[in-house]
């Protein structure tokens, strides 16, 4: 868990560095503040059986599901050798072997898809938990409603985590919804629901583990709101001056990574030296991996003209 938390954090450091060097391409969406949600939830799954549909602030989950640094960087930076051949970048890729299916930009669009993925196994008599995510803003998209209701009626083992990080781009919670807790919506779908502190990775892990159990028992989907703070702008071009400074200060006291490290140190599990060393070595690995990725050329132009269709006819895959 510690390793993944640090990976999620240092991925951010590395990408930010790249952005500042002017070498990043496309939007750089910070994970800062969301590491516990991403890591704790993915760890609650059985990665040999379950399936992850991550969103743009869930790189931690990619690591949990076994994505190698080099592959991730190639995908993120859309270089030759990336799993998408350059057709898309950032976290939008799928890695079926690792049971990771990335998102599309259209918020909420992958939630019915995640439900359908589990439905397929349900029809085969197998329980595959799909874990997916949406923001406090994205939760207002109509498809989220349809997907949750559908999943609940058909008792699909879907877990949707609403990552409430207070802002949707520049829009605060008060302008996105009027309910008290976003998990209040669970009642309206007849499904389990909870709102938890999203900065506490162990709490995220236990809450998600319960949801996974619930799903495995055939009791259907769960809606979990994790409350956090987006500690940077929507993407790096955004100076987030619309966020009150006090709010950021307040939340930085609850930094999910520092908090978890402190707890482990208090409990005598690790020492500060060890975690500092781990951080430095992970960051080093990331930078090295990014450098390797950047040595890859852009994908060959003709890749752009391929694979719009899988086949013109044919059976099975």
């Amino acid at each position, binding site marked *: 868990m510690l390793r993944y938390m640090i990976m999620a954090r240092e991925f951010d450091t590395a990408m930010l560095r790249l952005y500042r060097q002017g070498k990043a391409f496309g939007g750089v969406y910070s994970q800062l503040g969301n590491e516990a949600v991403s890591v704790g939830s993915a760890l609650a799954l059985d990665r040999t059986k379950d399936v992850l549909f991550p969103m743009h602030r869930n790189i931690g989950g990619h690591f949990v599901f076994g994505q190698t640094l080099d592959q991730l960087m190639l995908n993120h930076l859309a270089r030759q050798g990336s799993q*998408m051949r350059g057709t898309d970048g950032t976290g939008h890729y799928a890695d079926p072997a690792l049971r990771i299916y990335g998102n599309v930009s259209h918020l909420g669009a992958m939630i019915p898809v995640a439900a359908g993925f589990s439905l397929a196994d349900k029809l085969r008599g197998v329980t595959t938990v799909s874990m997916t995510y949406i923001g406090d803003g994205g939760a207002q998209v109509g498809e989220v409603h349809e997907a949750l209701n*559908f999943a609940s009626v058909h008792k699909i083992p879907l877990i949707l985590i609403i990552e409430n990080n207070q802002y949707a781009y520049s829009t605060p919670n008060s302008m996105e919804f009027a309910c008290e807790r976003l998990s209040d919506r669970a009642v309206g779908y007849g499904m389990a629901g909870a709102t938890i502190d999203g900065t506490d990775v162990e709490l995220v892990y236990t809450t998600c583990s319960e949801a996974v159990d619930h799903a495995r028992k055939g009791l259907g989907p769960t809606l979990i709101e994790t409350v956090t703070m987006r500690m940077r702008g929507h993407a790096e071009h955004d100076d987030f001056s619309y966020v009150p400074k006090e709010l950021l200060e307040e939340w930085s006291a609850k930094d999910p990574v520092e908090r978890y490290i402190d707890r482990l140190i208090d409990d005598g599990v690790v020492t500060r030296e060890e975690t500092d060393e781990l951080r430095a070595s992970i960051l080093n690995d990331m930078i090295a991996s990014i450098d390797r990725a950047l040595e890859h050329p852009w994908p060959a132009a003709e890749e752009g003209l391929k694979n719009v269709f899988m086949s013109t006819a044919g059976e099975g895959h």
Partner: protein
Amino acid sequence: MQMTYLEAIADALRVEMRRDERVFMIGEDIGTYGGAFKLTKGFLDEFGPSRIIDAPISEAAIIGASIGAALNGMRPVAEMQFMDFVTNGFNQIVTVAGTTAYRWAIPVPMVVRGPSGGGVGANPFHSRNSEAWFVHATGIKVVCPAFPDDAKGLMMASIRDNDPVVFYEHKGLYRKIKGDVPEGEYIVPLGKARVVRQGSDVSVICYGSAVHMALAAAEAVAAEGINVEVVDIRTLVPFDEETVLASVRKTGRAVVAHEAVLTGGFGGEIAARIADKAFSYLDAPVKRVAAFDAPTPFAPTLEQAVLPNSDIIANTIRATCSF
């Protein structure tokens, strides 16, 4: 075996569901009720509720769940109770289904099917011919059969195809058109046009309900000595340009017809390709016959005024031949 257009589609679905466990259906009222047009009558009894899934009124969820199931190795067939309601699941088709092969190289073998088209006194929301939207979406195959045998063979090919297919069933043909349909497995490959009437003077390029209008028009002008070739393109994506061009190069004249509204319709694409690639063969401009650019109205008088018909096609043929 003689079957209606509707029976032929049901037969294709039944044969595929029996043959391949990965095929399942999902839609509104398709189970107990057997579908608004009773197309899936008896399916629930035969295949059970896990393969004939009655879904809530949620087209986006129905299509999205189908995409997810397809990603996970199934071959879902999603019914739109009326194809008009595909506008509620539009994002799922164009944004997710149509881009997945390109981005992920993972097949999304699924069919979205349902009744489309007008001429039956429905209303503006139960009559739309929207196939051209998906033609312009990338990554989506589009099928519009006109005959029972094609409806069956193309449905079976669509289910077996590894790409998402939007399958337009013309509700006006459901019970009106009967024909001989091969039993059991019968595949009509996607992307092959069918010359449904041989002729030498002019080619009518068409699909769906317009094929029947074209055939009637061809009969009408035959008496005047005009020998019409009718080409039913059957699938819009993939488009069988070869067969269309071969026909026009032979006849030197072309009329393009569909029931969808004229402007921005697939007829423009066909006409543009003919006018470009058969340029030197053309003895007359390529004319189009299509619906007037309006919603399909409710009252029969108005609907007749808006939709194309065989008389208009016949007149267009005459004008083209005397150019």
